[in-house]
């Protein structure tokens, strides 16, 4: 748990554009979220880019996101990463290696090709729940 907390803190504090990181890609194309688990969700106003093996996610809305869940699909599995909060205009960077299955198996980019990334969150406190998906 301590490690997880440290990782989360690192993610939240890590600047989006780091000098030694490869430049972020153009915004990835949004796709429809067809998974029934996201039925009723509105769209998040977001931008997602890639920077090497990292995902660079920006909250482009004027509302904070809470309980932000990032779900990476690849192979037959889903890999999750949870963030407490992403503020309006804030960009967070999540490394692929920080995602893990519900059983704790870390995402391994050498073994699994990521296919989609779905970001979901509560928009504002007690507000709507939204999702945003991109094909990778």
């Amino acid at each position: 748990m301590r490690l997880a907390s440290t990782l989360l803190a690192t993610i939240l504090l890590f600047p989006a554009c780091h000098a030694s990181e490869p430049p972020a890609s153009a915004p990835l194309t949004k796709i429809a979220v067809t998974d029934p688990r996201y039925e009723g969700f509105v769209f998040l106003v977001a931008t997602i880019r890639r920077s090497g093996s990292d995902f660079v996610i920006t909250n482009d809305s004027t509302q904070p996101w809470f309980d932000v869940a990032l779900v990476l699909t690849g192979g037959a599995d889903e890999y999750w990463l949870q963030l407490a909060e992403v503020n309006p205009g804030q960009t967070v960077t999540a490394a692929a290696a920080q995602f893990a299955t519900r059983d704790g198996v870390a995402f391994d980019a050498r073994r699994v090709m990521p296919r989609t990334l779905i970001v979901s969150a509560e928009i504002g406190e007690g507000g709507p729940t939204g999702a945003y998906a991109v094909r990778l």
Partner: protein
Amino acid sequence: MSEDPLPLGRAHLLASTAIREARRAGLPVDTMVSVGDLRRFEPAVASVELLGISPLPDHAAALKAFTRLPLAFASRPISERSMMIRTERGTVTLHLSPPEQAGAALVWHTGSSLHVAALRDRANGRGLRLFDARLTDRQERPVPCPSEDDLYDRLDLPFIAPELRLGADEIECADDNALPQLVLERHIRGDLHTHTTWSDGRDSAETMVLAAKQLGYEYVAITDHSQRAWSSRKLAVDDVPRQREEIETLRGRISGIDILHGIEVDIMRDGTLDFEDEVLAGFDIVLASLHDSADQMGGQLTRRYLKAIRHPLVNVITHPANRSPARSEGFDVDFTALFTAAVETGTAMEIDGAPGHLDMDGAVARRAAAAGVTITIDSDCHRAEWLARQMRFGIGTARRGWIEPRHVLNAGSVDDVRAFVARKRSRG
């Protein structure tokens, strides 16, 4: 370890998680409850504090176990009876009290510093000493105080509800036997502000209605966002008849709860409403909201509100400051002018329980009620599972505003609500 205040909803989740983990870990405490800002329903919580009741010999073990909860990644002792832990979502402090002083400890840790200081002075005047969460006599001998009633009783006061313990005029009013009979959850008979998948809600109208019925409500209003609302999904005017049809079907299918077909219509830049009057007239209740300031300042925003309040089809002004606790103060509107117009026109004003609003806040709500404004307490909920939670926040906020059931429209029956709407419409 001081941090920015947490919005009430976040703080509540953090406290709930800490209490749940403490139970799982088997902390040697009989009871663990939220105190401080959280128990007073402060919209922005400066520190998440818990009080555990346990015999003195168990205190050291309880504090040690608290530092080892899964959510804790650092800890710092505050005193022999208090420990602070740092979590990824903020700090949590656990205070401990022996059962015989639980009442004094609850009051000590719940009240604002002003409230507690006033009680301390009052204790001094009675040969007692209220200090460090304990009540003693002048010789430092403990005076048993197992409940809050006992503490207030020792100080010749009636029980003062936690939400009132702000150090304003509550002790003076208690002395004069003039405390309000505060609204309680059981007084609320329906929810007049909910969202469904027809706009930006997550759940269908049916799911929301069934959840409201499960809570024991007698009625619920489905009030989705109008077509130009500042939300990510809206109810198009062309979809209103289909929504009405669906609600009519639900009325036939779900017994035991009245379903009001309402709307949360946006107040536009010029104070007009987002739907035409003939559309609005078809709804059972009309809530009007100002989500987008359009870069206007207080005077202009007030005028927009006043125009909406004077509209014969507008029944409730929702979350009037449009604030976001711990983040934004919201609109600088002239509440006195709004209250006067609301009373004149028979328009209610809302206390919105969504933790992103909690608006009107307690102080404003108290002024509204004093001015004679009818109040609604609503969840403004976007998902069924949080209907009760957000209504609780709304009620806590209302209690901070000294709101009594007699002030609250939805403490009345559905017929009272319909009559309230009809009265304004009949005035034209």
